[in-house]
């Protein structure tokens, strides 16, 4: 076990208890995030129930290739994040592996935002922004895109926070400001990252898959 007294913080007596508390605290916070995005998905579900045709039509307008690519990117980033967390928690010294995986995760996060940027630009060109000159005639379609912009926007904000957290770990770890091995912060960042990925896992079938079959 490394010398963990440097990482021991108020008011904890021993380090393993502090780690457990950190992990439990992030899980409780993730429960609140589940409610946060759950409420957004409920709004989507109720609007979709009340306007099934319009939501199918609007769903067909979304670019499914961007959506699928982004989902693949985030799933891969979850892989590399999980690797980083498990490697950091392992007693052996996987310092280069941990830094490598963290770097890949941050890169994949940025890739997601870039793809999202292209998609947003394409949506704007196709007049898919709710307002006066909206492309689709049905009223419900404006609801779909109102929710589309809001939910993907909120998700992108959460993803950006995730990228900042991962980059912070990379920087401090690389400059040896903090010891990455058995550092609870790596595990907490990983859990938060996985939540952002899970939110997208549910967003994908809601935004990109409706209306494809008819």
């Amino acid at each position, binding site marked *: 076990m490394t010398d963990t007294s440097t990482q021991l913080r108020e*008011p904890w007596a021993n380090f393993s208890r502090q780690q457990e*508390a950190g992990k*439990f*605290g992030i899980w*409780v916070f993730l429960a609140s995030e589940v409610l946060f995005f759950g409420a957004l998905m409920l709004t989507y579900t109720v609007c979709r129930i*009340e306007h099934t045709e*319009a939501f199918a039509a609007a769903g067909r307008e979304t670019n499914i290739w961007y959506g699928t690519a982004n989902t693949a990117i985030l799933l891969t980033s979850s892989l590399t994040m999980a690797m980083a967390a498990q490697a950091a928690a392992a007693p052996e010294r996987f310092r280069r592996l941990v830094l490598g995986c963290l770097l890949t995760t941050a890169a994949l996060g940025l890739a997601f935002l870039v793809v999202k940027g292209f998609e947003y630009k394409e949506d704007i060109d196709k007049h898919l922004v709710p307002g006066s000159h909206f492309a689709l005639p049905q009223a419900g379609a404006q609801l779909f895109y*109102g929710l589309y912009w809001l939910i993907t926007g909120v998700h992108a904000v959460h993803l950006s926070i995730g990228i900042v957290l991962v980059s912070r770990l990379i920087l401090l770890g690389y400059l040896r400001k903090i010891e990455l091995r058995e550092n609870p912060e790596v595990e907490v960042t990983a859990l938060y990252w996985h939540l952002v990925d899970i939110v997208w896992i549910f967003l994908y079938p809601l935004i990109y898959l409706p209306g494809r079959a008819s």
Partner: protein
Amino acid sequence: MRSKVTDALLNGELPLPPRPDYLRHGSTISSWLITTDHKRIAILYAITITVFFFMGGAAITAVRLELFEPNGWLLTSDTYNKLFSFHGIVMVWFFLVPSIPNTLGNFLLPLMIGAPDVAFPRLNLFSWYLTIAAGMLTVYALVAGGVDTGWTFYTPYSTMFSNSHVFAAAAGVFVVGFASIATGVNFIATTHMLRAPGMTWFRLPLFVWAIYATSIIMVLATPVLAISLLLVIAERWLGLPIFDPAQGGDPILFQHLFWFYSHPAVYIMVLPAMGVVSEVIPCFARRRIFGYDFMVYAMVAIAGIGFFVWGHHMFVSGQSIYASLIFSFLSFIIAVPSAIKVFNWTASLYRGQISFDSPMLYALGFVGLFTTGGLSGLFLASIPVDVHVTDTYFVVAHFHYIMVGGSVSAFFAGLHFWWPKITGKMYPDGWARFAAILMYAGFNMTFLPQFFAGYLGMPRRYHTYPPEFQIYNVMSSAGAAVLAAAYLLPLGYFAWSLFYGTRAGNNPWRATGLEWTTTSPPPPKNFDRQPRVDRGPYDYHAAGQSAGTDPPEVQNAREVV
């Protein structure tokens, strides 16, 4: 056999070498503004909510004055609407929700479970700064012109038809929501991870259980409030149509999201009050609490079922009759735990040695007013009566009985009970008892007439009203003046006690509980020796015995060798 000296030493009677307590542990401004000591953060919160309490009170004083005349004389309709909206927003999110959990809870949770501090001290300070930022946003909304949507922000009025500062106010409440979530996460982690050795779950004082149950609601309900306000902001500021009826949006959906938070929020406000009363009544009746485990199950049941009853706010909103029936049924079920608690408090007085110090008067005031408020809730749970009385002053009286009669009375009970521990000074109990009785009388004079006005059909949020309701409004406004006086009194004698109050020993009320085993005010790290616990709370008399008159064995802190 321990000598008398060690006993006295243990009880803190002997003058120990003066150690700096948490108040004198640093007196620079920055020592307060960047403190991570949960006791100092509790005091920062206490000051913050007191300021907001009197701002909300000022707003409603103008409203009560306006309601003297059926056609109004002091305010325009817009100002009236902005004032009652400001009163609602400030009182709910900036006073009631943080009042007991963030002040008494923050101060006492670590002390009661024998911990040096909360689990995440920096997160604790961060949530205070979030509350201050949110408060500034809300005050900006008021100063810039006010918000006139009511504290409920119903769409499509708030999103499309109100031309007041809805964005700033909604953003303010959005931010204070995250302060609430941060506090909840902090307290849940503290209760799980930092209990002293021997402090099992069923040896926890009921105040700790109350704060724990409240934290669960804070963490799980507040995000949905954040979303409902985010949707209002998105529609109003970014123009994304979500509740716009012309685009097929459903205004009732907003009400579902809003009330999913706002009903559990009333349990965020009343559960800590129940915790305080469960501490005060056993101490002044010198009796164990009656049915401790039933009290715990009742609290957890209230926190749990509290999430399933929100639809009783929407019986007339166009909600389907089947959903209304489900919500009505669940609302009747959740009334059962509250009833059990009232019966248990009452039964705790049996065969006690009851002394009527001011905390006890406030606590009994709580039981009285909370019972009336809870019973009037039954009227609102039955659909035909609710159809008649919802959105009238009957509802206003109901929730004020529980929130003001209940939570505020209990907050004052807690404030008086733990004031010696927080400040190390005793307050003049004579004045305090007078203030308690005055508050009880003033409260009933204010809100009892509103039950009648409500049943006779006076809608809420009315700037001008049919003349036949004038008598009720005049009585209510007169009562409000008495209530206001009753709220100002404690400010006076508490301030007086800070300078001239006699020094309070470690345990002036001879109460049980770990917070009474350390000095008053406690040292920065709460305890000199890690306390051990070997028996349950409220050990005012040996199990099976009756309340003796001599001071109890302060058993909780005995060093178990």
